[in-house]
């Protein structure tokens, strides 16, 4: 394709692409990102084979898309224009879909999603409860388009927002629009994006940098990955608008090396946008220029902190430094620098395209728009969801998320990863916005949402997060380096049944000191999981200390496995699986477990088909 040298040429290209697209032509959309782990490649190959066998080559588009969100049902496929949604497919199912749907236009009932508890098949994507409750703004193209095709992005109003900016808006007007939209940083802290841009714009100096923070490090969070993999151009367009607003000519995307598909798609997007004249020098024939470089992270959680990220781009150890000066004044190579997260940038094109008033009408008074969450843990519909701000936790978990598997009871939800907190069942009505979450002791964070049931031990969970932050602490400041270590030691003791009640006082004393005195966000938020679990699950801590009991049956030192002779069928699965040969018994007779040999690895528990292994 030829380089576009004016805004009119971009509009012409969009018309040309739309004119050549037949809306009635069948389109098979296959998730080729997360679903790959569950056989999406085989499903795609089966579609190619079957389509060619039926002589449909050239009459059907097989599109490799980004994440559809419903990861629990992987691999998923949606078919347009019918709108049918198929889930948990294998290559074997494909010929029937080609025959029934692509040729006859009918759904294949047994491959559709079944609504629970009615077990009625739901044929259309938009009627599946998981999708029905969502509002897709950032993820509007994810799962819809081929992310490696700039044409498909342009066809869906891609680069329309930057065209609008370049043809009719001053940098100050852009900033004003973003301020008015109420957009707040989606990386976690929730600072006003427009205001942040204003600082960078007003900073002295002619060389300014723009950075996209794609170093998504929270365990259990994969929102930014999905956006980069599924719709990389929307991030580039957001960066273009931001660079125009602050006056930057050079940008960086700092992306986790653990996300190979995201890296590939972003590189392709940058190359394609550059070839079309949407990146590089004199964009769309104007005086505005932006070059974007991609930097792959090298595996350090702390590099999500902006000053640490800058140090890493400069080729140094990724250690944070005190602020001020803020990066807006002195950032990369000492120049004014603006850093936003992937999801923040991805919000910008729709805001400019549809206007600040539209965006500000969504969400709550102080938290506008939508938020993407990565739902995981003990929840039926694990996946990626985009919901309006202000939705209650209950609706996310039970309406979108489909509730807790195995009929278990909801116990707590963790937002914000290791920096966040646990929200208990009593706060299920909590509206999900920046301020309500902070008031509950948690944080919005980047969007990880881990659901826990009655079998999760909250003391063990606090210990889990502390061991993560202690490991990832860069070691520069003492409160974080030593404080997280001391807290972890105390939690370790408690989970081993060696805790005393004074330990809880020590935790409460250490936590605010670490929060107040640490240099960066990592240390300042590291005590949150401990503080919220202490606040909402104090009894569970006391049970570990006073009764030497782990109510959830998790902490090894406080539990023992036993075989219930009444339920045991003597199938011998556990005996064969036990790495310690601690289980004995004859076939078809109840088995016995020798406690002195048992290392509590839990293998017998996970192997038993009859629930005969019990935790005491």
């Amino acid at each position, binding site marked *: 394709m030829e380089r576009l040298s004016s805004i009119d040429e971009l509009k012409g290209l969009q018309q040309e692409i739309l004119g050549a697209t037949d809306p009635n032509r069948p389109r098979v959309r296959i998730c080729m990102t*997360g679903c*790959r*782990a*569950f056989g999406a490649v085989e499903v795609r190959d089966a579609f190619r084979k079957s389509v060619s066998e039926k002589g449909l080559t050239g009459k059907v588009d097989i599109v490799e898309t980004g994440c559809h969100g419903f*990861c*629990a049902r*992987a691999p998923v496929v949606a078919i347009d224009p019918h709108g049918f949604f198929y889930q948990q497919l294998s290559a074997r199912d494909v010929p029937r879909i080609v025959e029934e749907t692509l040729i006859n236009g009918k759904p294949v009932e047994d491959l559709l999603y079944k609504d629970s508890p009615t077990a009625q098949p739901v044929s259309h994507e938009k009627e599946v409860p998981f999708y029905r409750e969502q509002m897709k703004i950032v993820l509007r193209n994810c799962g819809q388009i081929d992310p490696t095709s700039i044409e498909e992005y342009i066809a869906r109003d891609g680069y329309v927002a930057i065209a609008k900016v370049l043809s009719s808006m001053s940098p100050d007007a852009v900033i004003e629009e973003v301020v008015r939209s109420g957009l707040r940083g989606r990386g976690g802290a929730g600072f006003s994006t427009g205001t942040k841009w204003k600082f960078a714009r007003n900073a002295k100096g002619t060389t300014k940098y723009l950075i996209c923070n794609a170093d998504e*490090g*929270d*365990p*259990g*969070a*994969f929102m930014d*990955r999905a956006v980069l993999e599924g719709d990389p151009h929307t991030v580039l367009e957001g960066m273009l608008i931001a660079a125009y607003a602050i006056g930057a000519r050079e940008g960086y995307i700092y992306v986790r*090396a*653990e*996300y190979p598909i995201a890296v590939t798609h972003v590189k392709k997007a940058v190359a394609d946008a550059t070839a079309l004249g949407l990146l590089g020098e004199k964009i769309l024939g104007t005086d505005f220029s932006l070059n974007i470089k991609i*930097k*792959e992270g*090298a*595996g*350090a*959680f702390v590099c999500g902190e902006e000053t640490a990220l800058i140090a*890493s*781009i*400069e*080729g*140094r*150890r*990724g*250690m944070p430094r005190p602020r001020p000066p803020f990066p807006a004044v002195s950032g990369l*190579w000492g120049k004014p620098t603006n850093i936003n997260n992937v999801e923040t940038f991805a919000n910008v094109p729709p805001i400019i395209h549809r206007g600040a008033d539209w965006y500000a009408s969504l969400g709550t008074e102080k938290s506008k728009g939508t938020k993407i969450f*990565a739902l*995981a*843990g*003990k929840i039926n519909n*694990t*996946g990626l969801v985009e919901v309006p701000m202000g939705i209650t936790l209950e609706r996310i978990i039970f309406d979108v998320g489909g509730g807790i598997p195995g009929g278990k009871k909801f116990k707590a939800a*963790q937002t914000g*990863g290791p920096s966040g907190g646990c929200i208990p069942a009593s706060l299920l009505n909590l509206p999900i916005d920046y301020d309500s979450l902070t008031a509950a002791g948690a944080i919005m964070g980047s969007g*990880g949402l*881990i659901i*826990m049931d009655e079998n*999760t031990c909250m003391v063990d*969970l606090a210990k*889990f*997060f502390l061991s*993560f932050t202690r490991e*990832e602490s*860069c070691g520069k400041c003492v409160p974080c380096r030593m404080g997280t270590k001391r807290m972890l030691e105390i939690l370790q003791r408690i989970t081993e049944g060696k805790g005393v009640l004074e330990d809880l006082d020590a935790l409460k004393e250490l936590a605010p000191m670490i929060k107040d005195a640490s240099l960066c966000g990592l240390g300042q938020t590291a005590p949150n999981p401990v503080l919220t679990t202490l606040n909402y699950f104090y009894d569970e801590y006391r049970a570990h200390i006073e009764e030497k009991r782990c109510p959830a049956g998790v902490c090894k030192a406080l539990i023992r496995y036993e075989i219930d002779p009444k339920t045991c069928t003597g199938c011998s699965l556990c*005996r*064969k*699986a036990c*790495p310690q*040969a601690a289980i004995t018994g004859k076939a078809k007779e109840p088995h016995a477990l020798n406690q002195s040999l048992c290392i509590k*690895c*839990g*293998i017998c528990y*996970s*192997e038993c088909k009859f629930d005969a292994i019990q935790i005491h």
Partner: protein
Amino acid sequence: MTPSIDVSRIDPILQKYTNQAGALIPVLQEVQAVYGYLPEDALKRVGQTLHVPMSRIYGVVTFYAQFYLTPRGQHTIKCCQGTACHVRGGKGVLEALERELKVAPGQTTDDLKFSLETVACVGTCFLAPVMMIGEDYYGKLTPNTAVKAVRKYSPKAKSEEA
């Protein structure tokens, strides 16, 4: 145990990055892609060419989880210990792998067949608990299925079934 290496293999990389600010980390990433780890002799060459002292190189290499100073096994096992995997029993999976391979996380088996690593999230939480062996995902694991998956890569390993 460190085999001798041909350091000239990294010269094209060093040439590409000459006089580029902030080049150290991408250079180290590319050097590691050549050898599978960062041999000392290669690091010396990096330091001399880019005019970076070894102390700084060592500081950077040991700071980031991605860099290795010792040779890696033929297969890298990344056992996820993220939050979703943790609440679904990821620790039991890791312990089973440690018993099977007789190495701790971060170590490589003596026969250089496997390197065992933990990662804080591979972003496929719907598969929890999950591990990756090379590029392949293994999900919804139990301690036993994890061990079975590893044995597929190591046909000689004897099964200790009674």
